[in-house]
């Protein structure tokens, strides 16, 4: 089984996210970088599927040269191939990104055959557009289900489970197919030391991106007003007990 996972380099935020003076970026002076938790889960799911069925996991990103760090992290947790689609800014809009990724994937598949599955995170951790996966699938003319909380593949059919307010939805997709994975589908592993060292040796394929500028444009970033804390200290030590009881009664926990 051949699985491709698309990831995106994003800042690993602190408790408070600082924005650069021009309002165009997150201030990353003291931040590390990562991928979204959804994408970590997508990589993990791909690795588990390959562990079960055999095959290989390729990881792909469109981003600056530094995004190799995220590719190598994915390799250190089980991916074996890595593709960088380098751009000279931090981010492209979703339409342009999807077009570029689809073009690169087509090229890869032309050379090596089709991927059974192409996985995305449900949405990116920074811009949260929910778009790139769906647009890419559309361009590749493949089915996609987003929000996957379960994913199995048997006999050329991917079974995707997703949760909704109404209950659980089960989809069956004929491969090749695309799936947007949601955090919680699994517990992703951490890189091991050996994995990390092996990832240093992996050759990262570079594919020149093509894509027309799309319609979404970042105007400015703004931090929402900080939520006022509703925490009220009821007291400390044994003296607090009666206040706690009063509150629990008020909330209807005690009757």
């Amino acid at each position: 089984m051949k699985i491709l996972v698309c990831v995106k380099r994003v800042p690993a935020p602190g408790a408070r996210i600082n924005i650069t003076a021009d309002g165009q970026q997150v201030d990353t002076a003291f931040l590390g970088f990562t991928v979204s938790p959804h994408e970590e889960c997508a990589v993990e799911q791909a690795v588990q599927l390959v562990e079960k069925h055999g095959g290989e996991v390729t990881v792909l990103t469109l981003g600056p040269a530094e995004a190799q760090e995220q590719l190598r992290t994915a390799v250190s947790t089980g991916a074996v191939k890595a593709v960088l689609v380098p751009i000279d800014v931090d981010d492209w809009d979703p339409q342009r990104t999807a077009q570029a990724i689809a073009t690169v994937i087509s090229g890869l598949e032309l050379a090596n055959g089709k991927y059974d599955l192409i996985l995305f995170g449900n949405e990116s951790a920074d811009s949260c557009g929910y778009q790139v996966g769906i647009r890419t699938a559309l361009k590749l003319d493949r089915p996609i289900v987003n929000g996957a909380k379960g994913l199995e593949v048997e006999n050329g059919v991917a079974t995707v489970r997703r949760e909704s307010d109404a209950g659980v939805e089960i989809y069956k997709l004929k491969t090749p197919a695309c799936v947007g994975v949601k955090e919680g589908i699994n517990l992703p592993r951490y890189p091991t030391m050996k994995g990390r060292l092996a990832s240093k040796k992996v050759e990262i394929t570079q594919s020149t991106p093509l894509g027309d500028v799309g319609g979404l444009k970042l105007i400015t970033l703004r931090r929402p007003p900080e939520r006022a804390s509703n925490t009220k200290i009821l007291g400390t030590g044994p003296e607090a007990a009666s206040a706690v009881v009063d509150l629990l009664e008020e909330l209807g926990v005690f009757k």
Partner: protein
Amino acid sequence: MSEFPTRAKCVVIGAGIVGNCLVGHLAKLGWTDMVQIDKGPLPNPGGSTGHASNFIFPTDHNKEMALLTLASQKQYIEMGMNNTCGGIEVARKPERLEEFNRRMTSAKSWGIDSKLLTPAQVKELVPFINEKIILGGFYTPSVSCVDSLQTGTLMREGAVKSGNLNVFANTEVLDLEVEDGAIKAVITNKGRIEAEYVVVACGVWSPRIAQMAGANIPLTPAVHQMADVGPIDILQKSNAEVAYPIVRDMDTFCYERQTAGSMEVGSYAHRAIFMHPNEIPSNEASALSPTELPLTQDDFDPQMEQAIELMEMLGDAEIKYAINGLLSLTPDAMPVLGETVEVRNLWSAAAVWIKEGPGIAQLVAEWMTYGYPHLCDPHSSDISRFYAHEKTEHHIYARCDEHFNKTYGIVHPREQWASQRDMRRSPFYPREEAAGATFFDARGWERPQWFASNEKLVKKFAAACEPREHEWDARWWSPITNAEHLQMRESVGMVDLTAFNEFDFTGSGAMKFLQYMCVNNVDVEVGRSVYTPLLTPGGGFRGDLTIMRLAVDHFRVITGAFDGGRDNYWFNRHMPTDGSVVFTDMSSALCTIGVWGPNAEKTMSKIVTGDHKPFDVSQKNFPYGAVRNVLIGGVPCTMFRISYVGENGWEIYTKMEHGLRIWDSIAAAGKEFEVIPVGMGVYAVTGRIEKGYRLMGAELESEYNPVEAGLARAKVKSADFIGKAEYLKAREEKPCAVMCTLEMIDNTSKSGIKRFPTGGNEPILTKTGERIVDTKGRVSRVTTAGAAPSLGKYLLLAYLTPEHAVEGNELRVMYMNELYPVRVARVGSQPVFDPTDSRMKS
């Protein structure tokens, strides 16, 4: 929570291991009305304490650091916060095994039980180690892990419970107010608080806070990388926080320390990575904490490979937590403690690691309480030690960059800095360079240690100039020193002493002021001099210097390059405020040449004149200890008949710009006597040790008094002086230790080569190998070691207890983990060479 106060006796800024233990110790010493603040939350405000590895390897070659670490470990034990797990330093390289012998020696000095292990023995204690790649281990069973956060919390809460401390977390310092040179108030986001004392115990933020008051705490935040990997089966099964000894992989500068089911791998091997205190993120903007920054993975990769090599199981363990942790580095790798030199009552307790934290807190608390610490002499941690150029970021970065990778390095006691050289040059430098000087760094000064031009003398004095067989003993040393020594004793030599500090005290109150500062009577005739210790209030050594009386109201203090900063501070701190004394630091205005030897008088008599008159330099007209203003080739100079090498001659002072001319005049006059330039190898070691002269920071420390050092005079002056009461008391008591000169009886090692102790605190032991500890708990150890070429001996200086301080008594010295027989040659200050000082006075 109580309301934010408007005034307090003492405000301690910082609630890491240092600030917390400091308020605890201050409260125990009777301090009341204290306030402690930290900008972060409690119990972990986000500083370096919060992510420390929290282990203690007690052995250190440096006495001060060893004593502070042991005192800390004792406190952790007393609080039940010390988890003894043992620790093994492992060697991958043969030279490391040599270093382990040296560590065994230091461990013996400080009474730390340690032993050397074979690779198989290491494997028995650490079953998951790859013993095939190691050559051996240095095992210390008392190595421990501590809970520094909980220790700090207990200390802080103890002070709160005693009613002497109010604590305010999430309180940020915005400014410090200074009035008339003293700290006045701390401005915080919660309000302004006036305080008599303020202590900066802010770890990596300390420079930033001190700067608000115009004070300088020279340190830089620097990265120490570590990763927590696990779970690991064998560690999980141990079912303990630390079941296996901590392993320090010394030759890769890494450590492996169990934390429950995981292993923490830490490194001092990566490039030095610094951060400016102003650039450290706030608590709010930090993913983990302000001092736990994202790991720069590329820097850590080589260490992972080495770690896996040593413990294969680490390879498959998951990296759960990995950081670029910030800690404090200083230009000389020692803490920064004491009252800041710029602002009165503003104290620094910074650049402190977990292993020495509680001990240092005790030391600083004692210092603030008694005027000087009791625990040990803070000589090499004292904030006032730094010269101006050493407090710059330029210097801090350069030196920290150089020493960071030596954290686990093998550092020779005589090792020289490579960076920040040529900071200060004497006017004689061109001549010295031409004579092939090997320069050693003396706090920025380039000082010749020996001269290649004197190599020919090695043949002349061949018997005394044997090369040293062992590379370690020969490192940073040359047999030329012995040749220079003998040539000086035979004829005459010139020594560059420009690194001296000269402090001028003038004004109507100068004499009275110096009387108060000094033990010995400074009210001598104009043109005379006095040697004197300075004492702490506790009667121990605080300084050691000479003073010339140049006029009724003009005194010149001469002190060494390594104590200039501390002495400058000490005098300044006690200066009267009524304007009756003016202190002028002349150190950069004056240069100094020492001219000594049997032909010194003949040499100088050729060129010294009064104004248009010959000047009689004979002992009769110009006796020992006298100071005279003269002309040398028409240049005004001050000649001071004194010697630190035991020869007839002078220290000659002149203005910097005249220096080269004076040097050339003396060299020309001495030519017929084959005058040579002589390096510090003679002045500071061989010449000095033959005469048994004591040195501040080596023999003379605040733990010892003049009676023990053999420097007490027959009479005590009537004037009061700092430490007088304690000094008088010491004179009444029989000293429990006395400074002695010992000679090595046989310095042949088991492997049959001659060894030469470097003088790095090697223990003096009984014939059966027992440590000698006096009734005050101080251990006998080598304070200085050096050749005595004129005697054909190798000498050691050490304090001994009275029963051992008997001339002729045979003892042992341990060097590199071997015992060598030594004999007490002199008890007290009488020199081994020329005991009656006839050479200096005739």
